[in-house]
């Protein structure tokens, strides 16, 4: 079960051993750093910003918060406590115990593939309660779907720019070999044979380029992640070169490189052999 409440913290620097009846809490690393708290410190928490009716807790541990993209840039000052302690702390004066509510109930199913049926059952049996797969909820989070589209658009523009440059380069490289191709034509090699040779060269160069690109992206993956993790003080992964992403890149880069080589070569091979060989 999960419930959350905004609580204020007062008197935080005492690390003297508390009495045995003091309830324990966990605090986030960022909170420990900003308030200079350590394991064993006692703190007082209140449900109101004015610090009324405070209760004393003992810091039992410091944890690294689960990375949350939605809280990027925020200093996560967070306290985790036992649910009964939180309900005691936040219950309205005069409200009977047991009348509180929780925001979320996390459920671990025996069969992970059973989520849809479970969600339907919950909705049917308990109207007003909405159940959804944790994975689905994360994937459907609006901002990240939009960011995914944004990065895809940037990637498309980059591919277009790369294609144009690649075509220009292959035209120049093929043109550089104009005399050689002319001589090969004059000694009797058919255009198809020369084109095949250039095609294989293109495959080789594009494959080596794609592998080099993947190595470069793997190296930059670490650099970019470290930069953003340092900047935002988070353990979130910003860039991940997954096997699927790598396969897509190779599937785009190699055919693109080969096509550019063949297109540039084809324009050259259509010319007369004598003209090609002429200096």
């Amino acid at each position: 079960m999960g419930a959350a409440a905004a609580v204020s913290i007062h008197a935080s620097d005492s690390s003297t051993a508390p009495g045995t009846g003091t309830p324990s809490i966990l605090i986030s690393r960022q909170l420990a750093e900003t308030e200079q708290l350590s394991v064993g410190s006692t703190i007082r928490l209140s449900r109101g910003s004015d610090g009324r009716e405070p209760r004393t807790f003992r810091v039992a541990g410091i944890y690294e918060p689960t990375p949350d993209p939605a809280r990027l840039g925020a200093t996560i000052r967070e306290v985790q406590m036992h649910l009964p302690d939180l309900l005691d702390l936040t219950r309205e004066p005069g409200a009977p115990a047991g009348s509180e509510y929780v925001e979320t109930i996390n459920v671990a199913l025996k069969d992970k593939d059973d989520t849809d049926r479970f969600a339907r059952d919950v909705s049917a049996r308990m109207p007003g309660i909405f159940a959804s797969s944790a994975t689905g909820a994360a994937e459907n989070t609006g901002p990240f779907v939009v960011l995914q589209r944004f990065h895809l658009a940037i990637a498309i523009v980059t591919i277009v720019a790369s294609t144009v440059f690649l075509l220009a380069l292959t035209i120049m490289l093929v043109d550089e070999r104009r005399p050689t191709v002319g001589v090969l034509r004059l000694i009797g090699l058919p255009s198809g044979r020369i084109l095949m040779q250039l095609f294989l060269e293109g495959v080789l160069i594009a494959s080596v380029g794609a592998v080099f690109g993947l190595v470069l992206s793997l190296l930059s993956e670490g650099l970019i992640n470290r930069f953003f993790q340092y900047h935002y003080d988070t353990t979130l992964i910003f860039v991940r070169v997954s096997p699927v992403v790598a396969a897509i890149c190779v599937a785009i880069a190699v055919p693109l490189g080969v096509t550019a080589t063949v297109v540039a070569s084809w324009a050259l091979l259509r010319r007369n052999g004598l003209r090609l060989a002429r200096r």
Partner: protein
Amino acid sequence: MNAMSFAWRSLVRQPARASLGVLGVAAVGALLFDMLLLSNGLVVSMRDLLERTGFDLRVSATDAMPGQGPLIPDAVAATETISRLPSVRSAVALRFANATLQVADAGPRGLYSSFQGVAGGAHPWTILRGHDVGAGREIVVNENTERIGHLEPGSHVLLRASCDSSERQALPPVEFTVAGIAQFPFDTIRGTTVATSLAQLSAACGGNELNEADVIMASSQEAAGVDAAVADVAKALPALRVASNAEVVNRFERGGFTYFRQISTVLTTVTLSFAVLLITVLLTVSVNQRLGEIAALRALGFSRWRVVADVLCESILIVGGGGLLSLPLGLLLADGLDRILKRIPGIPADVHFFVFEPSALQIHLLLLAGTAIIAALYPIRVVAALPIAATLRDEVVG
């Protein structure tokens, strides 16, 4: 013939490769331009939006963004206190809640809307049709609510407020009369918003949080200035947090949206490196193919500096041509990318991620000029160090 004309003729002689080079630079330049627009766009846009509201001070209970922190107690009295300060022109208290409107096309669950309550003189919205809310049970609605709910000034609507998650659906519906159609500065593209007086909102909320607000917005007297107003409010109400628009923007800059600034820095660096590398390769291959021609020109009397100037001019023409094309391309691309990013939930319709600023154009031109020079360095070195006799002999023998 000067170096620029000579470089132009060299490029025109091979139109396919020159065009492709220019197009490549245009595509990369467009991306670079967009990244520069993105780096500061959101902050500039947010600042403009805050300034357009006409209020330059924000007072809240804590440093949390309005609507995300605790409410200001006794907000009406606090607003009156602020209004009476000599450095303040006007002040208005705002309370944010949610509401479900029982309207025709919204289905059985109703139309879920943002619900605002105000207390004070000036209201932070613009009336488009009808009139502003009065003392009675009146609301103003935005155009999305008007369209979806088929509402018009004078319509009656049942509204069920949702002021705290624990009280959701527990509050009885309240009938309001639509006084007018209004434009709200922070509305999202598809957002539905309704607003009334703070007293009516509190009543719709069950009367449990009477006289509380999320934020008090105030405008300073021009003669006194914002800083003086901030100091006066902080002195008059020491328990509250007061911030000028600049401070709010600064907070906003430090928040999660710095991601766009960081990503633009990374992409600018990658794009520039990519452009330098490719233009260097293009020029180097081009120069290598013309080594004999360049050696012949040197033998005919062209100085070392002259052939160096030719290569540099060639680089400038490719990058310059591509750079010029990159501006309209970049603006078109920015429009498309802005549409994509504005689908992020909660982004006000008037906020843009890509905002044109003269400084962005200046940086763009500087970066392209730098790219043209750096990309030309290696081929310039090749040309400058070219041995004339040996190259000519190789050409003849080869």
